[in-house]
């Protein structure tokens, strides 16, 4: 297990360099530079432009800029935003809880519904429910996030007026960010001042529902399909027949003997969804004006904020890689055949 972890960590190093190289070059391939974008329509004296570029070190050849960037990284320096002068790391840590809250809720929604739908579809194989779930999940998987988000906003927010259109909380509430998780902060604010902040928690939940559903749709579809096929495979195993021959209740046969083994590949898939969630968060946060890192990165790309784009993406990619790494280890815990391998 120790060597397994070491080997996996070794693979990460080239991946990191790959990410830095890709983000560094991609953002520079987009026409325009930070100074131009900052000035917008107004024309800028070329001499002033050159001076500003020199100040930012952007007049150097690309390879020098890249080595400077890598050098700074090795010193733990992620740079500062060109716009706010705040360090990238502090901006990230301020905004990340919002994305994490959204992604976690989306993942919980996708996992709970996906597992349930997959298990029931597998047990009732060939039934209308089975075909329905598989059809809907194929649709969900193929749905463009921005379109799906807009449709839900149109229906539930605009037509029915059930949920707010955007943001994390109504402005009428006085909620101080403490944990960065709006659900928790709103709950605490409501507890602290039940008069003024009555309904803050419910409002936070209502703001969260639609984005979580939109972001969770693709993972939900993937998890449901994977659970179903994995369950069907395990249901054919000899040990499931043994479990039935022991006179165990159907619930015990399904949940203890089948699902436990069927979960092993599903767990991997859930881990892989973290990447999908981060990618999806960019779109979802933009649609719902959710102040998280997705929206932060989109804005940074818009204004060619090189340090934010490069290092923001690097941090997100690192998180995705680390999550997959943790899933690999969890996989070993769920599967005794791997745990005990020498």
């Amino acid at each position, binding site marked *: 297990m120790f060597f397994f972890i070491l080997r996996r960590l070794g693979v990460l190093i080239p991946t990191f360099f790959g990410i830095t190289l890709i983000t560094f070059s991609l953002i520079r391939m987009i026409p325009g530079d930070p100074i131009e974008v900052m000035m917008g329509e107004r024309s800028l004296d070329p001499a002033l432009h050159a001076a500003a570029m020199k100040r930012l070190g952007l007049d150097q050849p690309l390879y020098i800029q890249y080595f400077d960037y890598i050098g700074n990284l090795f010193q733990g320096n992620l740079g500062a935003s060109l716009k706010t002068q705040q360090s990238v790391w502090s901006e990230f840590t301020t905004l990340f809880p919002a994305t994490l809250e959204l992604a976690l809720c989306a993942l919980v929604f996708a996992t709970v519904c996906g597992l349930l739908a997959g298990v029931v579809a597998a047990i009732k194989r060939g039934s209308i429910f089975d075909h329905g779930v598989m059809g809907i999940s194929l649709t969900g998987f193929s749905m463009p996030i921005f379109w799906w988000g807009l449709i839900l906003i149109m229906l539930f927010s605009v037509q029915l007026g059930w949920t707010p259109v955007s943001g994390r909380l109504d402005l009428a509430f006085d909620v101080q960010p403490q944990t960065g998780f709006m659900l928790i902060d709103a709950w605490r604010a409501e507890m602290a001042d039940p008069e003024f902040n009555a309904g803050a928690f419910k409002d936070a939940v209502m703001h969260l529902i639609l984005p979580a559903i939109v972001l969770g749709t693709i993972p939900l579809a993937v998890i449901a399909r994977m659970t179903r096929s994995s369950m069907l495979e395990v249901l054919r195993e000899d040990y499931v*027949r043994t*479990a*039935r*021959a*022991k006179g165990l209740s159907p619930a015990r046969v399904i949940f203890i003997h089948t699902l436990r*083994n069927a979960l092993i590949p599903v767990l991997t898939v859930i881990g892989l969804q973290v990447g999908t969630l981060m990618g999806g968060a960019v779109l979802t946060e933009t649609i719902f004006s959710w102040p998280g890192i997705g929206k932060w990165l989109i804005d940074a790309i818009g204004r060619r904020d090189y340090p934010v784009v490069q290092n923001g993406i690097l941090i997100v990619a690192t998180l995705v890689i680390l999550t997959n790494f943790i899933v690999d280890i969890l996989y070993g815990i*769920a599967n005794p*055949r791997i745990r005990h391998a020498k």
Partner: protein
Amino acid sequence: MSLLQIKNLSVEFGSEKNPFRAVEGLDLSVDQGEIVGIVGESGSGKSVTMMAMMGLLEGQGRIVADELSFDGKNLLTISARERRKIVGKDIAMIFQDPMTSLNPSYTVGYQIMEVLKVHQGLRGAELKARALELMELVEIPAAKTRLEAYPHQLSGGMSQRVMIAVALACNPKLLIADEPTTALDVTIQAQIMDLLVNLQKERNMALLMITHDLAVIAEVAHRVAVMYAGQVAEEGRVPQLFRHPVHPYTNALLSSIPEHSKGARRLVTLPGIVPGQYDRPSGCLLSPRCPYVQERCRAERPGITAHEHGAVRCFYPLFEKKEAP
């Protein structure tokens, strides 16, 4: 009254219109303390019969019978819940491939204790002590540490011993062994057979042994039923049936044992294969392969008729030994 009584059992798969009868008109009875063998080729319906009785077909097969009773309880009419109180407790089953029959995610101890918990409500230290006792009963060395072992850490023979421990946990009245030694090495086969027969004698339980190993049956069984294409072709007491098989199929089966092939003669075989779903003959199911076939055999299906030492499903049983034409 017999412990297990099966009369005219049929199991069908597939559509109502074009069903495949895996088992057809099967009669079988097992008394307490008796060892009954069921032999037959692959696909002759041996396992399906047992699965149907245990309720393990999960609604895939349609089960029809005049009688299907165990210990005075009608297995055809009882609810699934009632059946689960019998299955795993009074009727237990062990399977062909022990390596895949144990759940890889749980320890051996858990899988033994699970039955004790569900059927006998044992808890705590009592539960653990009983599990250990069972491990020792099936002669697993270092039983105490093996309780914590996972199935992939055990050999095939050890796994089958664990399966037997699970099956015997609630002192079943009937143990069904579905080809218990097929997947094991020859030396281990003998050990497992000895263990099963000893345990059967000790506990005076009924043992229903499904196999295609005639030698095993000849050695241990009291009675044997020979199955062919979902039917019992012949049934009888053990020494008699082996000495004087009266059904042409049993006769062919016994002459195909290498030990019976004396001198430099070629091993006797029965040409052809067991009929499947689409090539079932309209007459006797053996008629396309039978060396003694007559006109009547091709037209009508014979019923099973009793004789002095058993019963046979044949119009022209071989009461007097004749040479194949």
